[in-house]
């Protein structure tokens, strides 16, 4: 394999890895507050993309993305307000079933609001065919947007969860609901807030990914499966880990294509993931101590 070919596979891995990573980050927020996985996360990604595409006809791209993020955050809050807030002490299983149900509901609603057609946002820079030539290989500028967005989200989240009162309160809710409530934290508001952040991040992911991966009412689930896989691989609750794991998975997949038929791509990636989980059940970057304290 020539050098430029190796670089090309690497870039291709970064492209799909970036998509996995940005979807995976969203899973971590709700997990960090409630200790559950939101199975409707993929639908937030889809909603963000679809809303931005619709608004794009009436306003500039950046405004459309901002509005889409805000609207999806409101949808997230609404979902929590209507379906989750009233549960006294939700168990893991209850929450899983509720969120799976919600994902079906949102998907069907999207089918009726829009239609079955595939759409995509215009590329943020350049157009469909522009690419950057680097070391004899090509990469789409949109991929750089995805990576930059990932980095920005991770930095902001880390600052938010470590240094702000709200962020620390949210983490406290996840560690121990009762203790957090006894300390005067309004657990329910924190959960609503986490749904809003998570929906907003999902929507942002949906917008930056749309020019590459396209958006339609049913695109959330396949994205969420990969995102969920990556979130586990990186260690649940760890956003930096999610990004690293996403890129690792993407690159492994890309290189596997060079030697084996593409049909085996997922098999290889998931086998590696399984091996990691056998030896490090908390994921590559999750710590064993925190893992041991968690219910799920």
């Amino acid at each position: 394999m020539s050098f430029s070919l190796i670089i090309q596979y690497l870039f291709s891995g970064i492209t799909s890895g970036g998509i996995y990573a940005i979807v995976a980050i969203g899973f971590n927020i709700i997990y960090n507050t409630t200790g559950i996985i939101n199975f409707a996360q993929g639908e937030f990604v889809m909603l963000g993309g679809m809303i931005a595409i619709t608004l794009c006809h009436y306003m500039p791209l950046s405004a459309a993305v901002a509005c889409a993020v805000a609207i999806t955050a409101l949808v997230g809050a609404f979902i929590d307000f209507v379906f989750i807030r009233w549960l006294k002490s939700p168990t893991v299983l209850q929450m899983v079933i509720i969120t799976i149900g919600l994902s079906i509901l949102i998907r069907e609603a999207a089918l009726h609001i829009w239609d079955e057609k595939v759409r995509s946002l215009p590329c943020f820079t350049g157009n469909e065919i522009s690419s950057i030539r680097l070391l004899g290989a090509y990469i789409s500028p949109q991929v750089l947007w995805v990576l930059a967005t990932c980095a920005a989200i991770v930095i902001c989240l880390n600052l938010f969860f470590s240094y702000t009162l709200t962020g620390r309160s949210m983490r406290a809710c996840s560690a121990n609901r009762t203790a957090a409530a006894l300390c005067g934290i309004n657990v329910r508001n924190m959960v609503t807030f986490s749904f809003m952040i998570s929906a907003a991040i999902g929507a942002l992911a949906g917008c930056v990914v749309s020019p590459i991966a396209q958006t339609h009412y049913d695109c959330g689930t396949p994205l969420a499966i990969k995102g969920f896989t990556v979130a586990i691989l990186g260690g649940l609750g760890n956003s930096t880990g999610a990004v690293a794991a996403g890129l690792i998975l993407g690159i492994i997949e890309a290189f596997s294509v060079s030697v084996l038929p593409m049909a085996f791509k997922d098999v290889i990636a998931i086998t590696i993931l399984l091996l990691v989980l056998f030896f490090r059940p908390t994921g590559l970057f999750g710590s064993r101590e925190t893992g041991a304290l968690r219910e799920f």
Partner: protein
Amino acid sequence: MKLHSLLSAAVMVCFVAGTAMAQTTAKPAAGAAAGAADTAKKTTATTVKAAETSAKTAAAPAKPAAGAAAGAADTAKKTADTAKKAAVAPAAPLPEVPLKAGDPIKIGALFAVTGGASNLGTPEQKTAEMLVEEINARGGIKGHKLLLLIKDSGSDPQKALSLAKQLIEEDRVFAIIGPSTSGETMAMKSLCDQTKTILISCAAADAIVSPLAPYVFKTPQKTSDAIKKIFGEMKKMNITKIAVTSSNTGFGKDGKAQLEKLAPESGIEIVVNEVYEKEATDLTSVLTKVKAANVQAVVNWSIEPAQAILAKNMKQLGFTIPLFQSHGFGNIRYAKEAGEAAEGIIFPAGRLLIADVLPQTNPQKTLLLKYKKDYETKYKEDVSTFGGHAYDAIALLEKALGTATAIEKEKVREALEKITGFVGTAGIFNMSATDHTGLDMNAFEVLTVKGGKFAVYGGK
């Protein structure tokens, strides 16, 4: 071990199993097969019939396009064989309900309105509704109005099969239009034939009409003709080494198999042959492999949105070789989706997409312009070849109902076989007792994308 790790491991195992099944081409629909087996185990009279039907479907043609049906049938067959001894003859035709004066003629319409093939099923459904409305406004056929019963198969062959049973046994329909995809059609081919229900499919795979089933017809052009048309173009361009990419669906598999079969005859060598998931979000890795192989052209066979992604990725990676697509590219939506990257894509398609620029002398021109205008004014969206397949199906049925000596299934079936020189959206139909498509290579025109619009490909 903690619950956390147990749960995540369990989820992963399920996921791997799922992916492995979907990906390994040898067992296309092991998941569906398991489902069919479960159902068959319940062994009520109806489910046994269903299992038998699907077993036969696959056993008879054994073509790759049978896709999901073939997988399901293998398992279902075993269960059915054991159950067969105990009960039931093959699905027998129900006695035909005689049509009284003024009774409507019930037509079942089975389309993939949702799911992966929804961009096929939706225009088909809309077209069918429009055309039936039009026929009824004209006073129907021989004093009978048409009654269209539309069902959504969700692009799922198993669901299509059970809906077909419902249409035949409960609604007692006269004929069925659809389904939209090859996999779905193959799942119900023998059911329709055994129950003597006329089926006019809107799906393309050759396996639907070969081997021939007396009651099964189809309106889209043949896959093999599309490939011959592409190979003909390649010959003119002196292309001998190609890469083939196809999606993991009934249509993709049928195309892949036919490409493999027809390439040696045309002196073309397939150097890279890759299958991708229909939900693929990025195909640069597989294209890197294509790039390393130094081929002269890429042929892609799919009906999914991924065909726009492939086009974009090719341009991003700096490919200069031509991209050939299947007739599944015949929806302007995909060209718009791929934007700049769609320019120069070469694909065979019916003349509907270029109705405006056809010469006045073309016999199809008047019909194509009428359908295009009617559809676009009614639904405010661009017409696609898929809707055209439903148009042809209903128009052919209307013609046969009109010419048949009596409105009885066997008479109408015979009338269908006798239709010649019939101008449809896909081409000029010349049906016969041995040809239930009635279209030849002339139905295709080689098209390209120019300035975001479909245009006739002039050659290089």
